[in-house]
């Protein structure tokens, strides 16, 4: 009976067997897997160091088989900067959500980018704070209802959502600034290519690379996983266009 079984997948070596702590239907599982596949393909798990944020992915260091450091809220780029500068052969990446990276960690993000720190930032943008229960994020859309914008995001009070990769693409230190999405198989394949390019940049010493992954949060969006993808396509994609905003040597 088992003779007909063909294994197409399996867990990448760079992922541990620790059960994910993410909600059902959330895209963190996809992005973790893509990173792990890239670490496997590049053969760099042994010299990789993951910097985990504060937020839903606070336990990311449990899920990646490489060494890991948990950072204070927003400080992952500063932590990564120091690890990269003291261990030039290390492959250092941060994994940060929108609140962590673009709000409380905005200064650390901008300065790591402008210094051209030789690190990779994987930026999970789902336009909401997940772990704390669905508050207004720096990337929440105008009109978006959250726990702390119960009447919708208003420009007069909350300002405009921030486009991170566009902003960082203006900085000289940036080697790659790209936005991808995790809503369709084609987009997911593109996301993996982007993540791989980011890590290849770092291995080649090209400096700072950021890949923004438009992601879902079914729990705090109040939608089913399937409807979440539709919401992403109808709302996030128009405001956050996919594409390569900066790539050196291209």
């Amino acid at each position: 009976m088992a003779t007909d079984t063909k294994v197409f997948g399996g867990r990448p070596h760079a992922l541990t067997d620790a059960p994910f702590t993410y909600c059902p239907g959330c895209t963190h599982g996809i992005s973790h897997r893509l990173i792990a596949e890239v670490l496997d393909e590049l053969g760099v798990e042994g010299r990789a160091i993951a910097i985990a944020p504060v937020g839903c992915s606070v336990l990311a260091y449990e899920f990646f088989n490489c060494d890991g450091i948990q950072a204070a809220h927003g400080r992952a780029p500063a932590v990564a900067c120091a690890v990269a500068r003291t261990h030039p052969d290390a492959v250092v990446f941060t994994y940060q959500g929108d609140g962590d990276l673009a709000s409380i960690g905005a200064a650390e993000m901008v300065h790591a980018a402008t210094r051209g720190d030789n690190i990779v930032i994987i930026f999970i943008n789902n336009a909401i704070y997940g772990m704390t229960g669905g508050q207004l994020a720096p990337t929440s859309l105008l009109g978006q209802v959250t726990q702390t914008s119960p009447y919708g995001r208003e420009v007069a009070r909350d300002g405009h959502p921030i486009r991170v990769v566009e902003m960082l693409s203006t900085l000289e230190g940036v080697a790659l600034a790209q936005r991808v999405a995790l809503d369709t198989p084609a987009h997911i394949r593109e996301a993996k290519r982007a993540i791989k390019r980011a890590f290849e940049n770092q291995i080649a010493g090209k400096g700072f690379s950021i890949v923004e992954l438009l992601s879902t949060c079914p729990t705090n969006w109040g939608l089913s996983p399937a409807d979440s993808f539709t919401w992403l396509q109808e709302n996030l994609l128009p405001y956050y266009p996919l594409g390569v905003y900066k790539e050196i040597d291209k």
Partner: protein
Amino acid sequence: MAPKTTEKATEKVLMKGNEALAEAALRAGCEAYFGYPITPQNELAAYMSKRMPKEGGAYLQAESEVAAINMVYGAAASGVRTMTSTSSPGMSLKSEGISYLAGADLPAVIVNVQRGGPGLGGIQPSQSDYWQATRAAGHGDFHPIVLAPSTVQEMADTIHIAFDLADRYRTPVIVLVDGMLGQMMEPVALPEPGGATVVEKPWAANGHQDKRPHNTITSLFLVADDLEASNRARFARYEDIKRNEQRVEEYRTEDAEIVLVAFGASARTSRTAVDLAREAGIKAGLLRPITLVPFPVDAIEARIPQAKAFLSVEMNMGQMVEDVRLVVNGRTPVEFFGRVGGIIPAPTEILAAIERIAGDDACAKGGDA
């Protein structure tokens, strides 16, 4: 424990405290320095920026105090001997990172060249961060080791001790000095280069190289029992620190009836005041804590039977005096004399405080005189 000096190294050079500390840190094996400009510690960072590249280490002026301490956290987590320096307002910003260092049991050295506060305060010397260093270095149940040198020479010697203690006990160590010590020049015999203590750090997150399971550095414990166990383990280490690491210098205390307690810059003028008091026939002595954490309770306890009074002399409104009172616990009077705002207590005004206490004591005793 004190770093070795060779005959050649005992040649003295004239250096600012901030620079002597920086050079000694390099000789103690500091591999990474992260800072941010603030007066009166700027010479320290400037010195590091000049020397660190030649030593092959990492120097970076961070975008903020917060980033600098989190860079220290990253370097420490990956097993590197690392430090930062700042002055009082910067210390408040660093408290986030210091708490994370403590929570993740990471060794690092933080130098605070104190200035007056609160708020922006002033830029002149102060000891008003005593409570912050010993009680409130960050959120959560922890305290760092706190060292308080009082000469440029001692600043140079202390930094090596600070790194060694940080590694041995896996804890952040604060070196608490002030603008006077940071800025003044004194002859100093620098420790021998290459005398750094090498400590194995098998816990470090520096890449497993496919040779061991992955290491993780975190201060997160979501299960209450685990977090309690982590706190209890840390406080068990604090008990070892209390037992093993109390450091103090005593001056003319053998027969002292009025025992001054002072650290850092105020200990220097207190020492002169002790001599003046002795010339005036008052048996005064000075007990100078070198470790503020662990507080030298044993040395103070030993002087209680002979002491008619303790006098805590500080450059603040009265902070360490509370620790002296905790040790003395009502068994003998504990007085305070302090100046603030950047003013260093003069020996003559300390003497006046000593004479007042001595006079009160004489009155109390000679009731029918």
